């Protein structure tokens, strides 16, 4: 690899900016840095020059930063002011965070909705209709069909429905068929979850007690 392309030096008013390529191997980069400083050794003699190092998207541990400082220390007049990386890209975080999809409509017999993340359905799921999600499923209507929450194995996933009359419920790899195992004839909103590997149904108001998630209220 050409040493020129991995290290770019720019002069600014305060001193010199070293732009270090963020794609190449770190060891390779140190070699190039050594080589560059040796080559232009004379130019760096003289009064103290402030150095600002920019690493691009590369994230370095403190010990690796020290290795860079060590390289510069060999040139007495180069004083490192800062070693900076670009702010971490948020994109990969967003991808792994659960996304909430909102769908309006009725899932009728023979129709399937499949999503990564959570799903809120404003409508019913009719018998013969199916929802499959990697996260939680919230049905703001009557659930009469089949729902599979946590389809990729998330056993913490829950299924919420305004009217819980499913043909079949699945969470992770647990399959449950009412009314063989449980029945629901409650008029209030309920949710299904796994309790020690078996499907359980409870009223939605119990969810906060079961999950113990911290709620922050504004005011008072």
């Amino acid at each position, binding site marked *: 690899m050409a040493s020129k392309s991995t290290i770019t030096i720019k002069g600014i008013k305060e001193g010199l900016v070293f732009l270090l390529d963020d794609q190449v191997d770190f060891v390779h980069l140190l070699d190039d840095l050594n080589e560059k400083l040796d080559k232009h050794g004379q130019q760096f003699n003289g009064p103290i020059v402030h150095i600002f190092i920019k690493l691009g998207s590369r994230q370095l541990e403190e010990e690796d930063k020290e290795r860079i400082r060590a390289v510069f220390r060999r040139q007495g007049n180069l004083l490192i002011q800062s070693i900076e990386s670009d702010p971490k890209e948020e994109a990969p975080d967003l991808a792994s965070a659960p996304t909430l999809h909102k769908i309006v409509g*009725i899932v*009728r*017999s*023979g*129709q399937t909705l499949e999503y990564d993340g959570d799903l809120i359905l404003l409508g*019913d799921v*009719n*018998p*013969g*209709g199916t929802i499959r999600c990697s996260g939680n499923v919230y049905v703001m209507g*009557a659930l*009469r069909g089949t729902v599979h929450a946590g389809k990729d194995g998330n056993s913490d996933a829950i299924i919420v429905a305004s009217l819980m009359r499913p043909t079949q419920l699945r969470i992770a790899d647990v399959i449950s068929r009412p009314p063989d195992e449980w029945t629901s004839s409650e008029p209030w909103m309920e949710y299904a979850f796994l309790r020690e590997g078996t499907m359980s149904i409870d009223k939605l108001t119990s969810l906060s007690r079961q999950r113990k998630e911290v709620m922050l209220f504004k005011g008072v």
Partner: protein
Amino acid sequence: MGEAIVVTSGKGGVGKTTTSANLGTALAMMGQKVCLVDTDIGLRNLDVVMGLENRIVYDIIDVAEDRCRVGQALIKDKRFEELYMLPAAQTKDKNDISPEQVRQIIESLKPDFDYIIIDCPAGIEQGFRNAIAGASQAIIVTTPENAAVRDADRVIGLLEKNNFPSPKLIINRIRPTMVKSGEMLEIDDICQVLAIDLIGIVPDDEFVIKAANSGEPTVMNVNSRAAIAYRNIARRILGETVPLSQLDEKSGMFSKVKKFFGMG
């Protein structure tokens, strides 16, 4: 320009053909120009129910394959002013005609009629796609059974996908006594699941069977309860507001008197 309405259900045997025949006849009795189209190719029944079987010369396949003009294939029902029917072929099958061909035939009928009622075959395959191709409105027929409601739901889903904005629902063959005793699905429950507009309920009626065998649509019989229901549906199609008839309305004067005295 006429309106083309497809009568469909998904499940077989729920009364699509009977409904088509009776609605078409009822609309014709109310002075509308009506054409019935049978798309159940290979298993045609509409002509039998209408009592027009012996007058078939050409059929819809002949029209599609240009062996005759659409006007030549139409059979006029002489009992009414303006009731015609386009029969299906009995020797071919559903794949011998394409949705596009059906659409063209329906389009060519529209200028001459007020209503074109398309009788759809059971199922959701080619026959179904043919039947809905030319229609702009759909009537779903179901019976108070779980299997029929499931299939109706499936068909509604397919219709919505094919840009039928608001299909209408007919619940056929209701037995009031069985509904009351809880042995039959309730009308409200069916409507809640299917979530489309109910345009009529038709009671189970022996006259319907008798009528189908004699080739005289039930609506022509003044004594039939189903006939009243069909006529009411036809009036609703024409835009009138007709309240849904209560199922036990027909309980007769005697029981009404009993009810009045608190004995019912």
